C-alpha cells in the first residue's frame, strides 16, 4: 500500500463516529488543559487514560494524542492574556505575547499563535506521514543492543537538557528505572522490590506515579504561595493579523516549523526546547532584535509554530522505534501498552488502522483546534477566571478518580499521594521529575533489551560497540556525560536546559 492509499485507510478509521468523538474530546480537553495553568498535558493524559480503556484502542490513542497537541495550542492563550504559561512549551510566548496584549494587540497575538500552530501542526503531520514508513523499514533491523543504546541515549539526552545538576537528573533516571523494575521479572517470574505486597506484583502503575509527580506535586507547590493573575483588561479585538503582521510572521513560522519538527524527533527533545530555540533563532536573525521582549509578533509566531511542529515530530521515534522521546510520549507509550499494542516498526504492518488512523486524526484534530481556538477565545478567557482555590480541589478530585478507575484499587490512590509528596520534595530539593517518568516507562524495556543483548552475545559487552548504530548512540551519550565537566560547555547547557513539564 502506498502512502496515499494508507492515508485514505487512516481517514476511514479516523472518521468513524467514535474516533471523531475521541479526537474532539482529546483536543477540547487538551486546549482546556493548555489554557489552565497548574495542570499540564501529562496530568491530563494520565487522568483520561482510564477513560480510554473502555473504548477501542484507536479511539483511546487518538484521544490521548489529541490532548497532547491540543495542549500545545491552548497554552498560548494564558501566556498572552495572563502572562502565566498554561504549559511549559508556552513559557517563551509570554515574553512578547503578553507585551502585545498590554499594547492592546491581544487579538493578533492570539490569532497568529493559533494560525502558526495550525500551519506547523499540519506540516509536521505531512512530514510524519512521509518519514515514518521509511524509518520503520530501517528500524526493523534494530536488535536488542541498538534498542538498549538508543534508550540510554534518550535518557542521557533528557537528563542533559534538564535544568540543574546533571548528576541529580541521572539519579532521577536511575530511580525511575528501579521503579519500573518493581514487580515480577518478565523473564524469570521472580519477585523484585515488592516488600511482599501483592499489589506490587504487577509493578507500580504509571497513572498513580505520573498523577502524583505532576498533578498532586504541582498543586502542593502552588499552594505554598497565593497565585496572582494579571489578566489583560482591554478588549481582545480582531484575531485576524494585519498584512504587516503576516509579513513579519511568515519567515519565523516556517523556520519554527522546520526547527521544531527536527528537535521534536530527537530523543530527549521536545516542544519546550524547540520553542526556546526558535525564539533565540528569530532574535538572532532579526534586523531589530531590540523589539524582542517588547511585543514583537515574530517572538510569538516562531515559538508557537516550533512547539506544535515538535509535538508532531515527537511521534516519529514513538511510532517507528517504539521509543518515546519525552515524558509526554512516554505516557502515550504506556497507553499503547495498556491497550495491548506495541508501537514500533511493526505497528504499521500489524495495526495499520491504528497507525494511519492516528495520523489522519491529527489532520482532523488540527482543523478542530483552529475552530476551537479562533472563535472560542472568549470562552477560554472565562475559564481562566475560575479562581485557583476552586480549581485545585477539582483537579485533586479528578486525579483521585483517574487513579482509582485505572485499576479499581484504593492502593493506587495512596501510591499517588506518596508520589505527590515525593514530587513536591523533589522540586524543593532541585530534582526534576521528567527523567524519572521517562526512565520509569523505559525501565522494563531497557532491562529486557540489555539482558537479551547479553544472552545473544553470550555475555560479550563488545556487542554494544561492534554494532554501528548502538556504538554511535553510546558515544553520543558519553559525550553528553562529559560536557558538564567542561566549564564553558556546562554554561551553554544551563542556558538551554529546561524541564519539559514544570
Amino acid at each position: 500500500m502506498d502512502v496515499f492509499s494508507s492515508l485514505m485507510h487512516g481517514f476511514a478509521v479516523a472518521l468513524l463516529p467514535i474516533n471523531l468523538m475521541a479526537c474532539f474530546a482529546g483536543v477540547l480537553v487538551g486546549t482546556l488543559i493548555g489554557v489552565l495553568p497548574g495542570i499540564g498535558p501529562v496530568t491530563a493524559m494520565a487522568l483520561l487514560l482510564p477513560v480510554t480503556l473502555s473504548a477501542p484502542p484507536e479511539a483511546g490513542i487518538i484521544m490521548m494524542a489529541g490532548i497532547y497537541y491540543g495542549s500545545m495550542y491552548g497554552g498560548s492563550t494564558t501566556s498572552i492574556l495572563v502572562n502565566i504559561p498554561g504549559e511549559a512549551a508556552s513559557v517563551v510566548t509570554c515574553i512578547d505575547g503578553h507585551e502585545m496584549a498590554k499594547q492592546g494587540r491581544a487579538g493578533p497575538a492570539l490569532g497568529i499563535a493559533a494560525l502558526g500552530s495550525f500551519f506547523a501542526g499540519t506540516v509536521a503531520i505531512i512530514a510524519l506521514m512521509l518519514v515514518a514508513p521509511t524509518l520503520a523499514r530501517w528500524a526493523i533491523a534494530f536488535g536488542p543492543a541498538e534498542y538498549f543504546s538508543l534508550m540510554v541515549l534518550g535518557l542521557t539526552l533528557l537528563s542533559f537538557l534538564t535544568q540543574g545538576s546533571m548528576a541529580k537528573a541521572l539519579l532521577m533516571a536511575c530511580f525511575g528505572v528501579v521503579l519500573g523494575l518493581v514487580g515480577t521479572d518478565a523473564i524469570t517470574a521472580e519477585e523484585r522490590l515488592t516488600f511482599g505486597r501483592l499489589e506490587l506484583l504487577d509493578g507500580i502503575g504509571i497513572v498513580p506515579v505520573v498523577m502524583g509527580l505532576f498533578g498532586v506535586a504541582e498543586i502542593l507547590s502552588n499552594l505554598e504561595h497565593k497565585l496572582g493573575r494579571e489578566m489583560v483588561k482591554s478588549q481582545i479585538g480582531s484575531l485576524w493579523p494585519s498584512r504587516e503582521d503576516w509579513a513579519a510572521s511568515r519567515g519565523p513560522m516556517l523556520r519554527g516549523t522546520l526547527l521544531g519538527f527536527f528537535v521534536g524527533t530527537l530523543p530527549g527533545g521536545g516542544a519546550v526546547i524547540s520553542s526556546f530555540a526558535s525564539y533565540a533563532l528569530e532574535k538572532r536573525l532579526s534586523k531589530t532584535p531590540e523589539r524582542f521582549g517588547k511585543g514583537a509578533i515574530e517572538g510569538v509566531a516562531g515559538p508557537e509554530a516550533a512547539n506544535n511542529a515538535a509535538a508532531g515530530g515527537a511521534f516519529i521515534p514513538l511510532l517507528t522505534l517504539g521509543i518515546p522521546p519525552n515524558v509526554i510520549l512516554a505516557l502515550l507509550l504506556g497507553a499503547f501498552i495498556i491497550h495491548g499494542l506495541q508501537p514500533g516498526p511493526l505497528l504499521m504492518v500489524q495495526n495499520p488502522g491504528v497507525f494511519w488512523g492516528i495520523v489522519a486524526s491529527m489532520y482532523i484534530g488540527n482543523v478542530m483546534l483552529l475552530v476551537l481556538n479562533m472563535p472560542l477565545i472568549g470562552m477560554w478567557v472565562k475559564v481562566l477566571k475560575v479562581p485557583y482555590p476552586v480549581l485545585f480541589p477539582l483537579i485533586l478530585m479528578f486525579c483521585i478518580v483517574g487513579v482509582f478507575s485505572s485499576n479499581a484499587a484504593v492502593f493506587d490512590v495512596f501510591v499517588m499521594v506518596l508520589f505527590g509528596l515525593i514530587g513536591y520534595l523533589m522540586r524543593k530539593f532541585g530534582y526534576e521529575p521528567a527523567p524519572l517518568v521517562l526512565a520509569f516507562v523505559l525501565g522494563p524495556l531497557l532491562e529486557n533489551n540489555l539482558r537479551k543483548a547479553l544472552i545473544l552475545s553470550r555475555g560479550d559487552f563488545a556487542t554494544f560497540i561492534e554494532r554501528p548504530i548502538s556504538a554511535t548512540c553510546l558515544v553520543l551519550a558519553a559525550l553528553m556525560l562529559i560536557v558538564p565537566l567542561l566549564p564553558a560547555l556546562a554554561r551553554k547547557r544551563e542556558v538551554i536546559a529546561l524541564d519539559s513539564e514544570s
Partner: protein
Amino acid sequence: METGDRKTIGSELWGGLVWLAFGLWVTWEGYTIGLGELHEPGSGFAVFWLGVIATGLAVTVVVSALANPSPSVSSLWRDTRWQKVMLVIALLLVFGFFFERIGFIPSAFILLIVLMRVIDPVPWTQALIVSVGSVLGVWFLLAKFLKIQLPAGLLAPLLS
C-alpha cells in the same frame, strides 16, 4: 540566606545522603535477588548495577554539597504556607482511607468542601454549588455513562 556550614547541614547534602542510602539499598537488593552470569543475567543484574550507578551519582552530589554550601533545609520552607501543604496531604490520606468505606459521593463531597473552605476559603454557597455539581457530574459521567466503577459505599441502596 542561611547556608550549610559546619553548624547547619545544607539541603543539598541531605538530599545527597538520602539518595546515597537509596543507592546502597538498591545495590544490596540487586545482589540478594541474584546477579546470574553475564551470558544469562539474573533478575537482580540490572537492579544491582542501577544501585551501583545511583550510589556513584549520589556520592558526587554529596561531595559537591560538601564543597559548595547550600541553603539549609528549613530555609526552603521559609515564608511558605507549608502547613497548608501538609494539611492537603493529610486530607488526601484520610480521604483514601474512607473512599471505599463510605463511597465516592460522600467522601469526595466532604473533601471538596473542606479543601475549598479551609485552604483558601471561598464563599459557602460557591463551595456547596461546585462540590455538589462536580461530584454528581463526575459520578454520572463515569459510573453511568462510561461504566467505570466507583465505590457506592453508604449510598449503595440509593444508587443501585
